[in-house]
């Protein structure tokens, strides 16, 4: 017993040592050491893709680490699945709670822990009583017999937290819980989080909002590029320190931009709005200009691109292309007007996986390969071959399924598809995501060349160095609004990040 007592006093609840994670060949987490103490609220901060969510998912058994070890109360543990995590007292609460909408709140609370034999009767009375008790404990007023469907996101989160308590979790991980909440709901959530901390439980809080970290958290750990950069008490860091730690990496040298002559306005957007997604977006892109669109994931950048291209049209606002006002409701219309869009998710919106490379390349230019309605194979072959040569696409045969190519070469094929349409405005959404460094450099060169050829380019990217090195101007979006329009001189990692991190409304106005 004495032994156990000393353990409780000194050892952290969780200690992670050398945690690394690889997806395919890409290392997303590298040698992370982190101790989480009892009764603390610990914030994980970092840019998109810095590794904080991956780390949280490893703690919760969603992913297994490629290397490294975890210890719980000083005892080594293997968290092999979310169920194991649950048994160990670790719960991950998702931003959009996962629940069974048609079951009652009480049933959702006891999910997987009804007890009794498979054929035994379900102890409804006990379930309802326990559920009510839990809710009272948390000070939440929800009728536990009502179905989950129709509960607000905030209430659904409360149910998830209650579920974590029902299984007596010692570590509760909240992955961006406040994003969908109103200020009042955030306050309620914080109140509960503090109460749980005071009971001696540990809370890991992932967020992008610095003021929330200040309001709630005791310590903060900052991730960057898959590594842990710092763990510090929140009081010891200024906002500027935190932002610097989040982004402070050297610019990669290979990125250079050939200056292009900037011409007249090719794309002009005024007051573009899609309620609940983005509002009042206005900007312009000139011929030969590369305009970056930065911001955090979920800021609405992709939605703006999809609206411009007619995939999910905006409800108000005007779009002017080469001096003519246009209403675009269909991608085919956008293409006819000289727009091209390389979507963010190649597998979903880009490639036809099982179809041949040449068919993929020529998909947007039916008129060029079938002048009289019938496809002219020779014509198609020539077009595809030219593209393959120009963009240096590595393949075995034009007839092989595009799914057999590497990600970078698939992406080149998609870019080739759009170059065949000879677009005047090119929208690139995360064009280098999931692509090896070498091919990335090729892409940067190509983007520069396209601008030099007089095309207007809107580049959406979550990689700050990419934006800063390539773009003539950087727009930043945050929570559906345009928060900055920075010239090349003004755009720095700090200025972009400051505009990207959501602030309270007052701060923006001030």
């Amino acid at each position, binding site marked *: 017993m004495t032994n156990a007592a000393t353990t409780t006093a000194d050892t952290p609840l969780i200690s992670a040592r050398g945690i690394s994670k690889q997806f395919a*060949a890409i290392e997303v987490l590298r040698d992370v050491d982190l101790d989480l103490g009892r009764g603390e609220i610990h914030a994980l901060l970092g840019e998109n893709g810095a590794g904080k969510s991956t780390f949280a998912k490893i703690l919760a058994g969603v992913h297994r680490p490629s290397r490294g070890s975890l210890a719980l109360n000083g005892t080594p543990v293997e968290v092999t699945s979310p169920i194991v995590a649950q048994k160990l007292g670790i719960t991950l609460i998702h931003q959009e709670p996962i629940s069974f909408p048609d079951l009652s709140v009480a049933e959702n609370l006891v999910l997987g822990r009804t007890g009794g034999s498979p054929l035994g009767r379900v102890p409804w009375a006990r379930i309802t009583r326990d559920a009510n008790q839990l809710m009272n404990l948390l000070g939440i007023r929800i009728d536990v017999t009502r179905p989950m469907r129709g509960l607000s996101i905030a209430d659904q989160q409360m149910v998830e937290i209650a579920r974590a308590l029902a299984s007596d979790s010692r570590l509760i991980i909240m992955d961006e819980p406040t994003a969908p909440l109103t200020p009042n709901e955030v306050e309620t959530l914080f109140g509960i989080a503090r109460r749980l901390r005071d009971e001696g439980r540990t809370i890991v809080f992932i967020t992008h909002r610095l003021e929330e970290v200040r309001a709630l958290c005791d310590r903060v750990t900052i991730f960057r590029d898959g590594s842990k950069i710092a763990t510090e008490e929140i009081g010891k860091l200024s906002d500027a320190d935190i932002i610097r730690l989040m982004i402070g990496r050297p610019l990669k040298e*290979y990125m250079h931009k050939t200056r292009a002559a900037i011409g007249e306005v090719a794309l002009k957007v005024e007051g573009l709005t899609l309620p609940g997604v983005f509002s009042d977006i206005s900007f312009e892109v000139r011929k030969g200009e590369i305009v970056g669109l930065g911001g955090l994931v979920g800021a609405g950048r992709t939605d703006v691109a999809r609206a411009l*291209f007619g*995939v999910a049209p905006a409800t108000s606002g005007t779009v002017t292309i080469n001096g003519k006002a246009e209403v675009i409701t*269909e*991608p*085919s219309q*956008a*293409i*006819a007007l000289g727009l091209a*869009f390389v*979507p963010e998710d190649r597998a*979903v*919106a*880009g*490639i*036809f*996986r*099982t*179809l041949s490379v040449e*068919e993929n390349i020529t*998909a*947007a230019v*039916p008129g060029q*390969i*079938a002048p009289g*309605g*019938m*496809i002219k194979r020779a014509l198609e072959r020539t077009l595809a071959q030219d593209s393959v040569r120009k963009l*240096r696409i*590595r*393949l*075995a*045969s034009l*007839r*092989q*399924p595009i*799914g*057999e*190519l*590497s990600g*970078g*070469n698939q992406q080149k094929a998609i870019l080739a*598809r759009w170059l065949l349409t000879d677009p005047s405005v090119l929208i690139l959404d995360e064009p280098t995501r999931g692509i*090896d*460094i*070498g*091919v990335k*450099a*090729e892409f940067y*060169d190509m983007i520069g060349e396209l601008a030099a050829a007089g095309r207007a380019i809107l580049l959406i990217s979550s990689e700050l160095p990419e934006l800063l090195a390539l773009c003539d101007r950087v727009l930043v979006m945050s929570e559906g609004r345009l928060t900055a329009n920075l010239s090349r001189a003004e755009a720095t990692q700090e200025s972009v990040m400051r505009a990207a991190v959501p602030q309270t409304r007052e701060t923006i106005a001030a």
Partner: protein
Amino acid sequence: MSAIETQPAVQDAAPARPRWQVLLVRPETMTFVLLVLGIFAGGLLSPFFLDINYILKSFTLYAEFAIVALVLTMVIIGGEIDLSPAANMALSACIFAWLQQAGVPIPVAVLIGLASGLVMGTINGLMVIGLQLPSIIVTIGTLTLYRGLAQIIAGDKSIRVPEWFIGVDRIMVAGIPLPVVIFIALAIGLGVVLGGTIFGRQIYQIGTNEVAARHAGIRSARIKFGLFLLVGIVASIAGIMTASRLGSVRYDLGLGGELQMVLMAMLGGTYIFGGRGTILGTFLAAWLLVIVSTGMIVANVLPAVQLVVLGSLLIVSIIATNFIYSRTQR
């Protein structure tokens, strides 16, 4: 540009497949092999079997379904399905037969019958494309609806068609029954459309990845709607052909035909989730089905056993195509 020379090896693509392997994963290969085996087995079972005229005559019993199956193949490649064409055949034929019995001139009655087929296709299309409902549910619904309407129009009785209108299957073109000629001609026509035109290519692209197709500017809604219309009109043509072959129309005309049609498409190597399949495959599968069915009749196989054989054939062909496709998916 030095970055390009220092490419990691991962970027190198897999080598191209040898030609024989490409041929083996063609969707129709399995069908063709089965067809050859079927002819061989049939020939062993009965000497009458290898009489080409007998096979052609037998084919006329399946020709209407086979004709619709060709169009249905395109629908399935496009990622949708239509289970209502057999009911459409019955309703179109009933409308036609009822009108001509009521004294409407035959050509007018035929035209109205065809128009009704177009309307039925439109209803399917509106629900699947307009309301974004799953086509399998929609067309199970309309299958029941169209069959029910046919019964309301025709009641339980047969409606006879005039003597001169009977016998489309007895008209010979160069020694081949007219329905078979129509089937072959349509197969060639649709084969060219599906394999050689932008319209056909876009059907494959929609069936492979509809989101990507839309992003590439392909008007997927328009194309899919067109396909439902095409099934509608072709089914009504098939319905009126059936009326002519049988000489009378009842509400249960072509009952269960949708399964035969899907069977032909599947046996021909069409992938049920879309994106793959050919007209040639369905063409061969139609013959395979006729050969196996009549072969078993000639060989006096019990009807129950015949069903077992057809069912097994379908399952084997689906396993085979899925296996082949999953190998090539990687």
